[in-house]
């Protein structure tokens, strides 16, 4: 008998079917060997597939949502799934079948359904009852680096104004060398006061 777990968020639900890994002494409720998954979106066709498809689809949604917020062009393309933005509110999803002669499934979802789907995937990632191989999302890695860079930028921003202030003082005061010549003044004084 297979275990079944469901994650719901408003109009989207994700169902995971699979078995526990008894060789690791796991509980009966646990799912480590996923045999099937189903993503149900209200008023849209059912999306289901093999375990090897779930990871890339989740990654696609996460990467796309990051792109959408970061002001970059929100386009994600892969062998399995393409996501493009029609505008800021509507997103085009093209799911390509691995089987030959099967037409790709095209879905249009809005921001509300996109956030529901992301929250379903979050619930799956955080569930202690399901163990899935978490693939590293490339956009999450440079964030720490970016934060580090931000700190460096802030540090430079802190130093640059006084640096420029000192430089401008030096430049400004050096120009007075041409206007003021102390030796000429001394000579003039000597001429006016010959004593």
């Amino acid at each position, binding site marked *: 008998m297979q275990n079944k777990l469901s994650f719901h968020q408003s109009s989207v639900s994700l169902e995971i079917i699979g078995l526990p890994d008894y060789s690791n002494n796991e509980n009966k409720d646990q799912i480590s060997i996923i045999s099937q998954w189903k993503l149900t979106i209200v008023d849209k066709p059912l999306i289901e597939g093999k375990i090897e498809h779930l990871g890339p689809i989740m990654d696609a949604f996460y990467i796309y*949502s990051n792109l959408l*917020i970061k002001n970059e062009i929100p386009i994600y393309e892969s062998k399995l799934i393409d996501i493009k933005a029609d505008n800021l509110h509507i997103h085009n999803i093209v799911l390509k079948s691995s089987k030959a002669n099967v037409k790709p499934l095209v879905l249009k979802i809005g*921001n509300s359904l*996109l*956030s529901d789907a992301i929250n379903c995937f979050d619930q799956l990632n955080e569930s202690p009852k399901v163990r899935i191989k978490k693939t590293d999302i490339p956009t999450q890695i440079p964030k720490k680096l*970016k*934060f580090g860079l931000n700190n460096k930028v802030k540090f430079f921003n802190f130093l640059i104004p006084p640096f420029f202030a000192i430089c401008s003082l030096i430049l400004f005061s050096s120009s007075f060398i041409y206007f003021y010549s102390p030796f000429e003044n001394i000579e003039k004084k000597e001429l006016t006061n010959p004593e």
Partner: protein
Amino acid sequence: MRKSYVKNNIKVNEFEALIKITVEMSKYLYPFIREILKSKEDIKENSIIWNDFNKRFIELIKERFNVDSIRVKKLLNQTENGEIIIKSLLILSFCISNQGCQKLKNFLYDF
């Protein structure tokens, strides 16, 4: 941007606390956030929700922000503020999980 003449840097503890409050409030208000996002998807059918939200948003901005600032003026302009409001709502709606605090921080560093 605020109507305050005192510029204090936020402390790390205060930042963490604000993040926690924001995430908990977004969890609680998720159904409303979702409805506002949905109303903008089909503006002809659900324009009342979006218009009410935008009107209240502008009222609060006028009440608490420095209206003379150019950035605040952009927020008040109904033709220009749509994108920033939608993106802010999306960020809040993506951060309602248990790890929402970390997600919100990552989004803020990149925003």
